[in-house]
């Protein structure tokens, strides 16, 4: 019973690396009104290509495979962020991980990676993502609504078509910035923000669509 009231810990989950005490938010499952639209758009494509910018999550792979029979490109950009590189070097490292061919991807799951990037890096990343997205393609992301200093990133685990578990994992000390909706909209030039839902987990869940 005491485990239920232990804030900041992850009961039953062992950290991947030992380190200083991690004051992370507790694990939560958030209902999603955006995810079903993201999945539905992809499901309408024959053999969709989905770009996942987060760490590989086995259950997500299984779900995407089962629901979408897709081709999944997993490129964990958080690994590059974790290296603590200068912005110029980080930009090159991030873009190197991504496909370059225009209009080659049907869906992009960028989770909350933009919260950990400085504006010049974010703009370069957003430009590339907008370019590789096909017409009619969709981009799903999370953006913090409150700044924070953390020692963790969040792993987004798709529990069901309309529910996502937010589970943290250890990281070097980092700062999670806040993007205003206007900044996000301008960053993803060429994409239309079709859904923007405020969540209790101090973040917004957003869906973009390319015309």
């Amino acid at each position, binding site marked *: 019973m005491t485990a239920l009231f232990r804030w900041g810990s992850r009961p039953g989950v062992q950290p991947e690396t030992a380190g200083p005490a991690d004051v992370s938010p507790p694990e939560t499952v958030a209902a999603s009104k955006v995810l079903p639209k993201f999945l539905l758009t992809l499901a309408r494509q024959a053999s969709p290509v989905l770009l996942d910018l987060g760490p*590989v999550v*086995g259950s997500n792979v299984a779900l995407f495979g089962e629901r979408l029979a897709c081709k999944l490109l997993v490129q964990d950009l958080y690994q590059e962020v974790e290296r603590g590189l200068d912005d110029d070097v980080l930009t090159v490292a991030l873009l190197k991980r991504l496909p370059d061919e225009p209009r080659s991807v049907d869906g992009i799951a960028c989770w909350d990676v933009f919260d950990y990037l400085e504006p010049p890096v974010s703009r370069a990343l957003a430009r590339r993502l907008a370019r590789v997205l096909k017409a009619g393609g969709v981009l799903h992301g999370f953006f913090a609504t409150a700044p924070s200093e953390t020692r963790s990133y969040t792993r987004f685990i798709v529990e069901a078509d309309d529910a996502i578990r937010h589970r943290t994992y250890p990281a070097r000390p980092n700062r999670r910035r806040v993007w205003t909706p206007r900044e996000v909209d301008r960053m993803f030039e060429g994409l239309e923000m079709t859904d923007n839902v405020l969540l209790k987990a101090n973040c917004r869940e957003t869906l973009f669509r390319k015309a």
Partner: protein
Amino acid sequence: MKDTANIGKSVIIKGELTGSEDLTVEGQVEGKIELRQNMLTIGPNGKVKAQIVAKVVVVEGDVHGDITATERVDIRDKGSVDGDLSSPRVAIADGAHFRGTIDMQRGNKPAEAKPDAKGAAAIPAAPAPVATSTH
């Protein structure tokens, strides 16, 4: 009970491996592994730098290379794969490392093992794995 061939920890193979029985690799293999009707297991000590084609592939060690499985790929918690996967079912355990593309598109036919740089053709299946060099 199905026979399973084993490549031990001290064995290093460079070349092409084909066979028609299940295989467990605990040593090092560089080149190509083709077990179209069988299961390939890369054990915890296994290190493979090869193109892999099999019915089922279970990874508990390290793989650098593309994996094509007609039934499923299973990367266990200590497993690591850098390469592309092509299979209708892919299972990746928590803690596993993976970097690459996962092609779960239905209707994909199992790829022919990619020709190496010298353009060698795939060797027809043999009753047992053939080692081309050992140490």
